[in-house]
């Protein structure tokens, strides 16, 4: 049932057919026909950002909080290059995005025309796939294929580069709902024999642990539910990466907290001491494993991942199962039940006794103060005062991000939006905007650092334009705290260029952007100030002045193993703990 329309109309029609209700974008010469098509319809809402990087992160926040594909629309040249950081961020964290870029007309490609850049060349390395549409005949197929590739398998960003003449051209539009791609066919179901083997290994295990990641979130809500069921059936402890928080509830009995560089003592020592690691949708990244040759020395490893290249990439595993973790977990639950499997109860109870000893170490503890707000305390109060609400949290990158991961607790998936793989400062505010667009009635909070927030502060204007009541909670330590911490630990306390000099007055800045500004530096007044923020119907910038030189612990120093982590109150020269090899690492 082909319909005649222009390329620009096809773009908007395809968005509608894909169920896209919101697009984040910024106009320019090479996308004017598409903006004209947007003008003529009411289905797709366009959100005008203030920088294309913001459009990308907003689309990521939208995608991560809904499970849908996020869409951004940018012009050629600088529009496309400005989107590159967000595309790379989405690639690293497996976030489904479709990025539509304008391009100069096909006959000008290669002539260094005004605002021409080699978008497919530039974005080849930071997308899952990209397309340059050379003719109107290819456009409908490519548009729908782009969504298919972005959302299926291991999700990721896809760029569709649209020359202006193709936008103006007229052709037949078709919507094929179920695409089977001739080369791209990700494997969803895991190999049943291998899953049987995994279940057997789990029944035999004496010191098992589930190590889960962002893949569980990406697979969708049912995967999180099934993970909970399997954890319940087996009684095994559960830890997660930064990206996987919320898949297993933080208030669950078997929850160990996050693992890795700033993970809890119990999570890291459980990994180190385990005899079976069941890795679900995580990728043995260097922030997680620490020193590779000392990583979980006694553990057999099962790795469930939809991307075959993730398996055996960093850590050699004993059993790799390729498939969507939701499907594989479901098969595991079914087999565990039908084969009437039982965990080794005696061994498991010993294991839990050991874990409880590690838990008692209370590794997230910090010395609180009556005089100055401790950043951990601020996050704890924020959590206590918002936990019973419908809340979404985004973050920037730095110490505040780690404190948020440690002290804010997530009981549901899709509630936590953070830049994990790329670690992009400036992610949090646009991501909050995207999240708020998707959840207009919810409380959306960006836990920020004073340095990071300035990287995309212009998006306050976007929040103002669309009356988005996002709350920016700045843990203002007047330092690029994470950089300062590393300089303290590794570079003799020489704080080279890590002081946040000449900061704006964030309260006045809020005012300038039509938002409410709140400042608090008194632990006694913190709760009231947070309540004032929550109860304000519009956007808020909360300048929370915290202890300037607090360090983020626990910490596995670079190049060290899980059982060599530093805890908060260890009274030693930490610089001496990290050797020359460790200093080479980031």
């Amino acid at each position: 049932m082909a319909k005649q329309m222009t390329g620009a109309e096809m773009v908007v029609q395809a968005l509608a057919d894909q169920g896209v209700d919101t697009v984040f974008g910024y106009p320019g010469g090479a996308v004017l026909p598409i903006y004209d098509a947007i003008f003529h319809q009411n289905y797709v809402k366009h959100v005008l950002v203030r920088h294309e990087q913001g459009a990308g992160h907003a689309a990521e926040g939208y995608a991560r909080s809904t499970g849908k594909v996020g869409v951004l629309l940018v012009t050629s040249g600088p529009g496309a290059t400005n989107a590159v950081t967000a595309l790379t961020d989405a690639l690293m964290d497996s976030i489904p995005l479709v990025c539509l870029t304008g391009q100069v007309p096909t006959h000008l490609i290669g002539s260094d025309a005004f605002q021409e850049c080699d978008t497919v060349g530039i974005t080849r390395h930071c997308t899952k796939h990209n397309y340059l549409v050379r003719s109107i005949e290819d456009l409908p197929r490519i548009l729908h294929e782009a969504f298919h590739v972005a959302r299926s398998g291991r999700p990721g960003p896809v760029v569709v580069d649209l020359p202006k003449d193709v936008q103006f051209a007229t052709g037949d539009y078709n919507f094929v709902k179920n695409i089977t791609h001739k080369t791209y066919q990700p494997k969803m179901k895991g190999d049943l024999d291998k899953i049987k083997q995994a279940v057997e290994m789990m029944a035999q295990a004496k010191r098992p642990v589930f190590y889960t990641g962002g893949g569980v979130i990406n697979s969708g809500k049912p995967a999180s539910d099934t993970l909970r069921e399997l954890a319940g059936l087996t009684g095994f402890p559960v830890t997660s990466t930064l990206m996987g928080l919320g898949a297993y509830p933080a208030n669950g009995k078997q929850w160990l907290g996050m693992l890795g560089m700033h993970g809890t003592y119990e999570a890291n020592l459980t990994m180190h001491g385990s005899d079976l690691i069941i890795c679900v949708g995580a990728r043995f990244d260097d922030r997680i494993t620490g020193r590779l040759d000392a990583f979980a020395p006694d553990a057999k490893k099962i790795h469930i991942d939809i991307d075959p290249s993730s398996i055996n990439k960093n850590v050699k595993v004993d059993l790799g199962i390729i498939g969507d973790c939701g499907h594989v977990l479901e098969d595991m639950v079914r087999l565990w039940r039908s084969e009437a499997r039982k965990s080794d109860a005696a061994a498991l109870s010993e294991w839990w006794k050991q874990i409880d000893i590690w838990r008692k170490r209370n590794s997230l503890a910090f010395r609180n103060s009556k005089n100055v707000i401790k950043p951990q305390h601020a996050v704890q109060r924020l959590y206590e005062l918002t936990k019973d609400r419908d809340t979404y949290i985004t973050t920037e990158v730095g110490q505040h991000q780690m404190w948020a991961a440690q002290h804010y607790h997530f009981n549901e998936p899709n509630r936590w939006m953070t830049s994990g793989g790329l670690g992009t400062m400036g992610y949090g505010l646009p991501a909050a905007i995207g999240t708020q667009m998707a959840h207009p009635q919810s409380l959306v909070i960006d836990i920020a650092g004073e340095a990071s927030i300035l990287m995309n502060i212009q998006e306050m204007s976007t929040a103002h334009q669309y009356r988005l009541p996002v709350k920016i909670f700045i843990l203002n330590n007047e330092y690029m705290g994470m950089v300062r911490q590393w300089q303290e630990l590794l570079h003799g306390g020489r704080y080279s260029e890590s002081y946040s000099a000449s900061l704006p007055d964030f309260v006045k800045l809020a005012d300038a952007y039509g938002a409410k500004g709140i400042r608090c530096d008194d632990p006694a007044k913190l709760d009231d100030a947070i309540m004032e923020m929550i109860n304000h119907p519009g956007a808020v910038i909360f300048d929370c002045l915290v202890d300037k030189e607090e360090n983020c612990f626990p910490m596995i120093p670079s190049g060290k193993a899980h059982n060599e982590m530093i805890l908060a109150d260890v009274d030693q020269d930490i610089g001496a703990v990290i050797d020359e090899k460790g200093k080479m690492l980031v």
Partner: protein
Amino acid sequence: MTDIASLSPYSSATVRSNAERHTLSVLVDNEPGVLARVVGLFSGRGYNIESLTVAEVAHAEHWSRITIVTTGSPEAIEQISHQLERIVPIHKVTDLTLHGRSIERDLALIKVAGKGENRIEAQRLAQAFNAKIVDTTLESFIFELSGKPEKIDDFVELVRPLGLVELARTGIAALSRGPVAS
């Protein structure tokens, strides 16, 4: 210069040592940019390319075959194969070296210039190696030689002192032995 990678505790020593040479046969959709994707993957992830050939092999289907010779530990080569499989327009990646025995051929054009004894010796060697003479002047030849890459290496080394001027090679084309597709 300090080799940062060798200092890094993250790269285990085993990844570096037992390097093997593998031939990968990659069937791709012949769309614009597909070669750039493959080559970009190798440079971006720091893999080696010893030889790379590409040409269309099925016109109607728009398929090309890219044959890549690479070196690395068995783990690294497995990783390369999987990374290649992630590229959307790639149909199939076959590690011919793992696949059993395969036929590998390289083709070279070799220009040799000289007079007298050297010229006669070059011609004699060409005969022994089954090289064809495809161009000749009174003082030069271009030989065409195809075969296993080592055979071409041997021939080139033999004619080098006789007046080797220049050399062009296609790189390796390879298929698995036997009746079925690899």
